[in-house]
């Protein structure tokens, strides 16, 4: 059958599925195109560490390559790696997962998220998530045939998602609650009691919780609570984690999912047909990270901690209100005092001062009035960026 438009001109019509067409392009992408044409930009727009992977981890991967470890691994991932992951979950969260049946090695949390959603969603099922949230959450739900249901969060509540607000949005079609704390883009961290209320909700309404805990080790002066460690939640949680953020291993693309056997089996089914396995060198590197990377994480954490204080104070000093982010490596200041929209602010700041931040709206409608500033940048860069932002804010302040 001929496609519309192709009959006379031989130009093919659109072959893109509705499902993909209906997904808006990432707000970050658009910004990236503008940015890549400019030079000398100080970027607070990244979502990754400025450190390179600690050398002993790189070296472990190089060594394994030298030894000829260049093959497929089992679909679920190297047994030794799954063992290490189970060990980490035991020591950090007090959780005991069977590495043979309850752990799946994925290509970063990104793949884990996609697998989890595809494994559990039927067409039209709803997944509740906070707004703003990481760009992939709503898109991956839609791609899996589900419907993202956004729960607004506010600066007043430090961008935590409240159990009450979630409960109001639960319907017959609700399948899961998807959260990621410590949060990208806001830096918010949920306290144990707050998570317990969500856990309670999940149990009362028989829902799953998909918890993206990739920033679990990057918390400042507060404790991270693993959702699965709450009473009754191990069976109801799909725990996603990876190595990109804490171990500065973004490019290695390696992460994992931990959940009950039934879920891991379903996820593995999709994984084996679409990805086969995570790259072996990434897995080798991650084993070393788990075995001996603790002190690197501590050192990077303490450096982020210093920068966090500098950027939060600096943003407040130039007149932007900024709640104190307790996790990840982002500050999420309000730019409402300028009267500009988030997009205008980010675009003008880039053009006028050559400082890149990401408009809050890239992460959802509730990000309007905010921008995401990543402080995984050197202190001199942060200080320079703050100086330039100060000049910019002064110039654009609403009268």
């Amino acid at each position, binding site marked *: 059958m001929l496609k519309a438009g192709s009959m006379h001109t031989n130009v093919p019509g659109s072959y893109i599925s509705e499902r993909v067409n209906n997904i808006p392009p990432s707000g*970050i992408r658009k910004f990236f195109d503008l*940015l*890549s044409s400019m030079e000398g*930009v100080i970027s607070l*727009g*990244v979502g*990754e560490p400025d450190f390179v992977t600690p050398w002993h981890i790189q070296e472990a991967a190089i060594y394994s390559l030298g030894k000829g470890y260049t093959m497929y691994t089992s679909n679920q991932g190297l047994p030794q790696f799954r063992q290490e992951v189970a060990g980490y979950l035991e020591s950090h969260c007090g959780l005991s997962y069977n590495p043979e049946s309850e752990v799946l090695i994925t290509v970063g949390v990104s793949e884990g998220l996609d697998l989890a959603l595809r494994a559990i969603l039927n067409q039209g099922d709803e997944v509740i998530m906070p707004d703003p949230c*990481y760009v992939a959450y709503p898109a991956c739900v839609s791609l899996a045939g589900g419907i993202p249901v956004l729960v607004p969060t506010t600066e007043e509540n430090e961008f935590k998602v409240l159990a009450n607000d979630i409960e109001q949005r639960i319907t017959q079609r609700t399948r899961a609650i998807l959260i990621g704390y410590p949060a990208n883009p806001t830096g918010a961290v949920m306290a144990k009691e707050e998570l317990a209320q969500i856990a309670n909700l999940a149990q009362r309404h028989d829902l799953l919780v998909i918890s993206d805990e990739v920033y679990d080790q990057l918390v400042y002066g507060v404790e991270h609570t693993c959702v699965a460690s709450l009473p009754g939640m191990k069976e109801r949680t799909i725990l996603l984690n990876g190595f990109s953020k804490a171990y500065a291993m973004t490019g290695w693309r390696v992460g994992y999912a931990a959940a009950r056997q039934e879920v891991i089996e379903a996820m593995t089914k999709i994984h084996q047909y679409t990805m086969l396995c995570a790259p072996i060198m990434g897995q080798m590197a991650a084993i070393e990270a788990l075995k001996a990377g603790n002190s690197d994480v501590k050192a990077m954490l303490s450096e982020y901690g210093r920068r966090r*204080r500098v950027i939060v104070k600096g943003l407040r000093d130039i007149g932007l209100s900024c709640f104190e982010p307790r996790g990840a490596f982002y500050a999420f200041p309000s730019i409402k005092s300028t009267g500009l929209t988030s997009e205008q602010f980010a675009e003008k700041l880039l053009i006028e001062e050559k400082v*890149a931040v990401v408009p809050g709206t890239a992460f959802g409608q509730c990000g309007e009035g905010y921008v995401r500033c990543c402080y995984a940048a050197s202190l001199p860069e942060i200080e320079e960026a703050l100086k330039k932002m100060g000049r910019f804010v002064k110039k654009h302040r609403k009268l």
Partner: protein
Amino acid sequence: MKQIFEALEQDARLTPEQISTMTGIPTAEVEKTIKKAEKDRVILKYKTIIDWDKLGEEEVWAFVEIKVVPQRDVGFDAISERIYRFPQARSVYLASGAYDLAILVAGKTMQEIAVFVSEKLAPLNTVQGTVTHFILKKYKEDGEIFGGGEGTKRLPVTP
């Protein structure tokens, strides 16, 4: 308190105000801690790592192993002191293994170092022998890598 020293060790030019922002410790307390540390010689000195090669300055470094006879009552301390008082000896360490003292020596020329070793170090009466290794190239010093910075390989905007 440790945070103050960790920050200073990375960048000695940080002001007490900056350190206070970074650590959350009040400025006055930061000042007091630093003053006391300077007085107690917890902070020995503030210095800069310079790539003299890049400036075209000739400078020769050597690593000298020294075997000595320890002395009654003072062990290695007396001989170490004799040695570390020479300004040419930039660092002096007591080490385990095949030799006793390891020292780093700097000079303008190889000749200058050779003279220092043969005329000052070797004749000391408890020194049994020395082995001098001239440094051919500095790759890393005090945690800093010499040569051009590698620059960022990150994309400017990522999710």
